[in-house]
């Protein structure tokens, strides 16, 4: 059936031939996967054969909106940016904020697919139904912020700019795509995919409509839900201090990682926390259609950034034994400008610091030294000197130099800043996530640590926690809605989807779609050859007792970890090897 709120149109841009074509949105896919995350993975599964080179012309880059995108449903302005990952070889779906998502919808598309590769560095401009290819000229080689500024000065603020920095141009596994200067599609080397297509920037302007039935009544109801649920006290922290709110909670909870995942609290947390941030904050910002506004625009010294988020703060602070909000801001501005993932960069540098500390190899960075850290990050972007050794992350570096036990990644994607020995389920979560170690799939710490009576240091029952939270995020990010609207539930999602699409979506169906999205992600990877054997976490979690905090002394056991995988595979209906049986694959 034709659904409203969708544009029912996919734009395919063939970079090799510099041609474009549109096709109707596959409505069967839309009904089964809704949009954004789920829809992107299903299209990737359909379009791309297994075994293709993620940096080759056969890897497509998908910008995918959801039906909620381009409506005043709060927190609906995120955009899925997906491709096969050069860093992990799995599927990779990133989520970028800013205004590109809503503008793609207003331009008339549900999804834009970039196929092939440009013959020389270029930028592509999409203005409604007009698509033009341009020589990147001197833009190629510029940092991301410099390039965005030049393009906005020329084209105007009605355009959103998606750009890469030198890290993406150099095809680094640690490379991101920026928009609005300070929003990223961050992880898994997504910037390198754009770089391999020799696309420096994508500009999007959209002036058309998004249509929904009974728009006045629908908008009235959206605003009601907005005020009652989204703007409720549960989410107040978002406007107040943004993700800084996680700092004290994670420190109290004993999952704030420090010294390359050796310890899990930092006595100095209150020297770079939300209260300190507020002294330097100049303004607040949100994404298109945001109802909350998590962005903190800060200036410390001459360093400016909209950020840093919790992940960036922890990855550049306690992980590297540095206590300085100025450093966190400086680091954030630098990695954004160079087009690098702030999580992977911090964790990789922390690993390099430990390598020097242990006398295995000195990359030129040491715990506590801010200047060395900032210097090597630039060298990583440009693949210079010792920076070249680290540009592709800890998996590649540790396979060459040793120190694999404490190279904190899963499948080649570096760990986010939640310590698994303080929240055992997170280890399984990182291991089974569809794109390598990611906390935005199944954030089990929500139940294991931030809940009054769930024991964190056990493996029993964690498979179910993993599944429930994974299912929730899978449908949420397919609608799509931003993670920070924490109090949303299936009833609200189903009601909103029904109102805007004109199709009856039920609460139960939300869970069904969520489960299906988890399955299609796994199916993509399975087809690439991934099995249970790849669902691994570093030995540090099993060998090194955690230092400090409520989880002091905790280690995990291999049996416990494998048991969590067993529980999860059984719940998913996968075999003992973590693979989907054919009957299940056929339902996707």
């Amino acid at each position: 059936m034709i659904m409203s709120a969708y544009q029912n149109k996919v734009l395919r841009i063939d970079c090799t031939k510099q041609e474009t074509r549109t096709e109707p949105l596959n409505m069967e896919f839309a009904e089964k996967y809704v949009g954004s995350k789920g829809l992107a993975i299903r299209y990737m599964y359909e379009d791309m054969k297994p075994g293709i080179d993620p940096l080759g012309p056969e890897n497509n880059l998908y910008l995918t909106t959801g039906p909620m995108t381009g409506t005043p449903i709060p927190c609906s302005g995120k955009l899925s940016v997906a491709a096969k990952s050069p860093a992990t070889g799995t599927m990779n779906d990133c989520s970028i904020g800013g205004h590109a998502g809503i503008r793609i919808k207003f331009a008339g598309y549900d999804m834009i697919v970039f196929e092939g590769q440009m013959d020389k560095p270029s930028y592509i401009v999409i203005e409604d139904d007009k698509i033009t290819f341009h020589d990147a000229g001197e833009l190629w080689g510029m940092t991301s912020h410099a390039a965005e500024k030049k393009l906005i000065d020329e084209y105007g603020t009605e355009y959103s700019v998606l750009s890469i920095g030198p890290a993406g141009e150099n095809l680094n596994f640690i490379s991101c795509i920026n928009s609005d200067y300070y929003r990223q599609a961050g992880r898994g080397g997504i910037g390198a995919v754009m770089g391999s297509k020799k696309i420096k920037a994508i500009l999007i302007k959209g002036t058309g409509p998004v249509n929904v039935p009974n728009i006045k009544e629908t908008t009235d109801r959206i605003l009601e839900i907005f005020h009652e649920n989204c703007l409720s006290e549960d989410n107040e922290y978002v406007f107040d201090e943004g993700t800084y709110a996680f700092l004290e909670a994670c420190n109290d909870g004993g999952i704030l990682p420090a010294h390359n995942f050796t310890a899990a609290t930092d006595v100095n947390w209150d020297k770079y926390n939300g209260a300190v941030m507020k002294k330097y904050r100049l303004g607040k910002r949100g994404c298109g259609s945001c109802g909350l506004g998590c962005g903190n625009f800060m200036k410390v010294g001459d360093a400016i950034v909209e950020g840093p988020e919790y992940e960036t703060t922890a990855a550049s602070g306690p992980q590297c034994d540095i206590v300085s909000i100025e450093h966190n801001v400086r680091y954030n501005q630098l990695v954004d400008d160079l087009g690098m993932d702030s999580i992977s960069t911090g964790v990789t540098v922390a690993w390099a610091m430990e390598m020097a500390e242990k006398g295995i190899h000195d990359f030129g960075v040491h715990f506590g030294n801010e200047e060395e850290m900032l210097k090597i990050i630039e060298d990583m972007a440009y693949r210079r000197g010792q920076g070249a050794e680290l540009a592709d992350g800890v998996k590649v570096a540790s396979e060459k130099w040793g120190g694999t036990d404490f190279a904190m990644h899963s499948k080649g994607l570096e760990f986010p800043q939640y310590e698994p020995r303080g929240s055992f389920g997170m280890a399984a979560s990182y291991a089974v996530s569809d794109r390598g170690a990611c906390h935005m799939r199944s954030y089990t710490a929500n139940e294991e640590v931030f809940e009054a009576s769930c024991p964190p240091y056990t493996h029993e029952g964690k498979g179910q926690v993993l599944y429930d939270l994974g299912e929730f995020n899978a449908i949420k990010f397919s609608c799509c809605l931003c993670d920070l609207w924490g109090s949303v539930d299936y009833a609200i999602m189903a009601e909103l989807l029904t109102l805007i699409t004109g199709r009856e979506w039920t609460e139960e169906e939300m869970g069904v779609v969520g489960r299906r999205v988890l399955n299609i992600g796994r199916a993509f990877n399975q087809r690439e050859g991934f099995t249970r054997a790849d669902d691994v976490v570093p030995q540090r979690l099993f060998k090194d007792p955690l230092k400090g905090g409520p989880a002091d002394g905790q280690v995990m056991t291999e049996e416990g970890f494998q048991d969590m995988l067993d529980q999860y595979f059984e719940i998913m209906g996968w075999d003992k090897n973590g693979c989907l049986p054919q009957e299940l694959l056929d339902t996707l």
Partner: protein
Amino acid sequence: MATKRLKFKKALCIGCQLCSQVCSAYKEGAYVPSKARIAIETCYDDGSLKYIDNYCILCGMCMKACPFDAIDMDKGWLHVDPEKCKGCGLCAKKCPKHVIQIRDNFAFICDTCEGDPNCVKACPHGALTFE
């Protein structure tokens, strides 16, 4: 009773553009912010956060500029007479806030939703108020 006007406090604005989306919903029958009677956005430029606040302040310059007397403010908001408006665009040129749109030979001007502005209802943190 004093005329109520839209007021904007930039410290509370997050640049979400829900104001334009909701305006276009009630006035244009679709979510099409390019056709809204309000256009507030924020953006980064030269290391600072800029606020571009295009909203009707009821200054009445459009009314004064109209050569056909098509615009009045009798009820406390701007009203364009479709019988008189020719879509000449002089009002749009004079508008200090750049919120008048000329389309299909007609001037589309904010009428504060006749004293009950919907943009204010959509603004997350009260950056937009009507007082």
